[in-house]
């Protein structure tokens, strides 16, 4: 039996609801609606685990939870990749280098990095679900010898919506990684896969006993992906998902993200699949 995911994160700083003001160092455009912000660390010794998130605060607009998308071993900066879909994220999209914003975190559970050691690691992501798993990939590719087969299957809406495309190009050249991409809607010039990310699974060799699968994307995508993994023999105790519910306070006080007996902001966002399966059909509050 595999170990449960990391225990709920306990904020260690003295005022967990008080944001720290930090500056934007760099802003990178990823796609038409997605961008990456590189920020100053909010305090000396700031650290996070892959899978955790920060609450970003744009003054006068509001807060939003955003996963870390950068290297967890690089304490010199923090990186968030964000899609502009609402008022806060559109405000974040307008921040230029030097602009200031509020940050509080890190919050939430993490991907089970210790459990991945020596195992085959299978990342399956859709849309911007690749951002919370990028820190896992960066770590594994940096310490490649510690892990078995490394495979990343990712689905995007279209080639022009593919975030981290340049990195994927680079990683696809590595002999020690298998990276397969697919799109829902092809565009002129695209010669790759077209179809759901689950369709890529049949192109991948899976040893069910050795494989740990980490899923991130729309919940429907993750449900169908888990079913396909089960069909391939991967126990649900070896499948982890990251949920995105209505997280607001991030410290399990407001209750907006309650899912059954669990608060996604505290007990998630990363769950082992068997621990959350019964609640995945619960509509968002």
């Amino acid at each position, binding site marked *: 039996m595999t170990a449960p995911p990391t225990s709920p994160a306990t904020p260690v700083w003295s005022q967990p609801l008080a944001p720290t003001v930090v500056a934007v160092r760099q802003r990178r455009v990823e796609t038409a609606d997605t961008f990456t912000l590189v920020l100053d660390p909010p305090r000396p010794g700031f650290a996070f685990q892959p899978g955790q998130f920060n609450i970003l605060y744009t003054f006068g607009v509001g807060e939003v939870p955003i996963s870390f998308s950068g290297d967890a071993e690089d304490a010199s900066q923090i990186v968030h990749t964000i899609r502009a879909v609402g008022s806060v994220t559109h405000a974040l999209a307008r921040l230029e280098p030097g602009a200031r914003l509020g940050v509080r975190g890190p919050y939430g559970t993490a991907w089970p990095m210790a459990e991945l050691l020596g195992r085959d690691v299978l990342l399956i992501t859709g849309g911007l679900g690749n951002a919370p798993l990028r820190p896992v990939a960066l770590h594994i590719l940096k310490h490649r010898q510690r892990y078995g087969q490394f495979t990343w299957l990712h689905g995007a809406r279209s080639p022009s919506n593919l975030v981290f495309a340049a990195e994927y190009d680079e990683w696809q050249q590595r002999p020690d990684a298998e990276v397969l991409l697919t799109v*829902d809607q092809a565009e002129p010039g695209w010669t*790759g*896969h*077209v179809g*759901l990310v689950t*369709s890529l699974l049949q*192109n991948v060799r899976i040893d069910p006993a050795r494989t740990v699968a980490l899923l991130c994307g729309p919940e429907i995508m993750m449900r169908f992906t888990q079913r396909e993994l089960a069909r391939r023999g991967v126990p649900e105790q070896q499948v982890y998902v990251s949920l995105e519910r209505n997280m607001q306070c991030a410290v399990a006080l407001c209750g907006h993200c309650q899912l059954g007996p669990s608060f996604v902001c505290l007990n998630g966002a990363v769950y082992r699949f068997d621990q959350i399966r019964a609640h995945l059909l619960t509509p968002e509050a």
Partner: protein
Amino acid sequence: MTTTPAVLASHPFLAALPGTWAEHLAAGATLMPLQPDAYLAREGEAAESFYLIRSGRVAIELQHPLRGTVPVQTVGPGEVVGWSWLIPPHTWQFDARVVTAGEALAFEAVWLRAQLDAHPDVAVPALKEMLHVLAGRLAATRLHCLDLYR
């Protein structure tokens, strides 16, 4: 190019059939190269073949009046192309165009239908396997309709 039972048995679609049937079907199978941009099927034309993809990738496409050729799905090794040969009036519903070079096993549709009609013992598992393929494609199509990543 003719093929061998071993080559047939290596394809997942045929793994579900009774063991002796790889040998039987080998008599009607042709191992064919897939050349980029070659069409295995054209919408509206007679569906005269059934393909098991061994390598390479094939795009299932539709012609859109404004958007031109629209790939709706790609299929690759271990997958099948075409079920129109099975369902009257036996005309292709989509185009199927080779995207990357590879190899496929091709069966002549009239011969294959005759085998299924004459041998219910193989027809049942074969149709079950085809149903599994169709159910997967239907689920994929339904999810595709949701535009999950919008």
